[in-house]
């Protein structure tokens, strides 16, 4: 295990039991499961921004919730700065809660509409005992609002969320996280609901947080374009597995896994003279329970899919500097003919 890593995930699994008919339940005792997260391994360095990209239903959000102990993992180990946290009790985990935080997608839904901006931050400060008295609380709120770019502070102090724009609300959400001085922040689709002109401002704020406070980020998104802008490394997810992981420019310019290649082809470019590419894959992400997939989970949609792909599980193999992919075509067990 990498000792310097902020977060190390080993064989993380989260399966959800599926409901079954009465007869099936009586005849066969076992229930089938949906493998939302199926055997994930990675580690996140200090001040690193690691992006997780995939289509809806690939397990990105379930993974982040499991890492933060909002869901109990089915299996695997989660280490935060060398301490195993998935076996801790709720009470033992509380000091870690402060260090591992999350910024959600919908700022309109994640802020209490009946509290003003300053009250929202004050609540967080009180819960975690971050200030000794009221003036200290005020000073901390002021400092935080300034830091997330809500200047002049007085203008926002007594405002309710409904009076703010999406970008401003997202800054309040970020302030609420920042006030805790976290070391790991999971940003779950944090800019997808915002206008393009505002997005860059929020992403630059995340950069600032990383540089100034040394925060590491897990950036979850379905948008490869913003992921390219902000991430140091990108992991591509498909049906609960990481299919490819590597440095951002490597993934964008030299994708090795057929799924990554398809995703990149599908992204439209802001250039009217560009030729519209043909999409190599068909269909959509299947909702498949445990027993239907034995081999590679992408085999059904893969343009190069072979018989072997459905029976043999591909392993992660190294294809470049820090660049890994899991595909039977790459490791040479089967070839395109």
């Amino acid at each position: 295990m990498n000792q310097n890593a902020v977060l190390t995930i080993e064989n993380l699994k989260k399966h959800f039991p599926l409901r079954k008919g009465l007869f099936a339940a009586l005849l066969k005792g076992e229930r089938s499961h949906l493998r939302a997260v199926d055997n994930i391994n990675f580690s996140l360095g200090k001040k690193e921004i690691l992006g997780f990209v995939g289509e809806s239903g690939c397990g990105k959000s379930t993974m982040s919730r499991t890492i933060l102990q909002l869901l109990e993992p089915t299996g695997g180990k989660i280490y935060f700065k060398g301490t195993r946290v998935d076996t801790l009790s709720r009470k033992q985990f509380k000091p870690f809660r402060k260090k591992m935080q999350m910024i959600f997608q919908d700022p309109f839904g994640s802020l209490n509409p009946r509290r003003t901006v300053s009250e929202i931050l004050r609540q967080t400060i009180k819960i975690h005992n971050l200030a000794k008295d009221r003036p200290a609380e005020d000073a901390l709120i002021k400092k935080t609002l300034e830091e997330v770019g809500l200047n002049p502070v007085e203008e926002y102090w007594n405002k309710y969320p409904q009076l703010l724009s999406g970008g401003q609300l997202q800054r309040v959400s970020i302030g609420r996280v920042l006030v805790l001085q976290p070391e790991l922040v999971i940003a779950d689709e944090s800019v997808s609901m915002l206008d393009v002109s505002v997005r860059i401002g929020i992403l630059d704020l995340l950069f600032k947080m990383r540089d100034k406070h040394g925060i590491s980020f897990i950036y979850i998104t379905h948008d490869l374009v913003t992921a390219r802008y902000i991430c140091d490394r990108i992991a591509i997810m498909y049906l609960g597995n990481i299919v490819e992981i590597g440095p951002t420019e490597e993934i964008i310019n030299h994708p090795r896994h057929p799924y990554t290649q398809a995703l990149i082809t599908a992204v439209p470019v802001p250039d009217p003279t560009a030729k519209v590419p043909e999409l190599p894959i068909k269909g959509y992400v299947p909702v498949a329970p445990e027993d239907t997939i034995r081999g590679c989970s992408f085999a059904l949609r893969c343009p190069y899919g072979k018989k072997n792909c459905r029976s043999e599980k591909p392993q992660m193999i190294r294809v470049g500097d820090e660049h890994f992919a899991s595909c039977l075509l790459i490791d040479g067990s089967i070839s395109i003919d």
Partner: protein
Amino acid sequence: MALIEVENLKIYFMTRRGPAKAVDDIGFSIEKNKTLGLIGESGCGKTTTAMSLMKFIKPPGRIVGGSIRFMGNDIVPMTDEQIRQLRGKEISIVRQEAQNALNPVLTIGKQITEMILEHESVTKKTALARAKKQLNLVGISDQRITNFPHEFSGGMKQRAMAAIATACNPKFLILDEPTTGLDVVVQRQILEMLRNLKKELNLTAVFISHDLSVVAETCDRVAVMYGGKIMEESDTVSLYQNPLHPYSKALIGAYPSLKGERRQLKSIPGGPPSLIDPPPGCRFTPRCELAQSICSQEEPVLKTIDGRRIACHMVK
């Protein structure tokens, strides 16, 4: 010949603090078989403009001036009954969030035939056959005609919406963020389907999106809107390669791309203007890097330069 011609259109929403000028004196026309893109930040009047083309403006909103001519006839003074004849038959819409636009208790087949039977005097049997054809056209197997919307995935719902919208062979289609909120792979499939539909049915369309890359791919001309006004209107290629208006420049400059070098991007400081009490002169002045004193005193008129229209004092 222009299929749609909009002139001096003004749509105000009457609020307690005075009228909010969501669309304020805009004009454009769309030639037959062409697609016009409307881009801009949230709250700039894109959707209001598009909705007005079907006269879908509900109180407190009101069309307070101007004309919208569809094949030569002004639809602004039309009665509800007259406009109802046009909706679905001649002008149709595909919206964002198909899950909310479809009726959850009717099958897809029923929803398509309903549209056909409303506008044409055909038998139920013919309508059903046409509905099947529609489904095939948008890439759904006709065996799923008895399915309910909840049995469809997000992308399929959007396809079903398009099948309903084009059931009566309309001439004009309003596409209001049809791919927003979909995954890239599904988005690519929907864009492909829309391109097919447009070719098969000879459609003219208006395409609203805040995704500049989708607009680049689908539109022939693009109008950039800001604070209820058109700031620049041009053919797509010249706009993307050489934006003239400072707002268009900023908008395109803030847009990241997957192709080419990874570049530094700049967000546009500030937010969209108040529509009730807009800044004097040019509405973009408070956020504009090039603003001079004239900009906050005089409103720039849309002038035509080389087939492009620009409203800016600084562009000569």
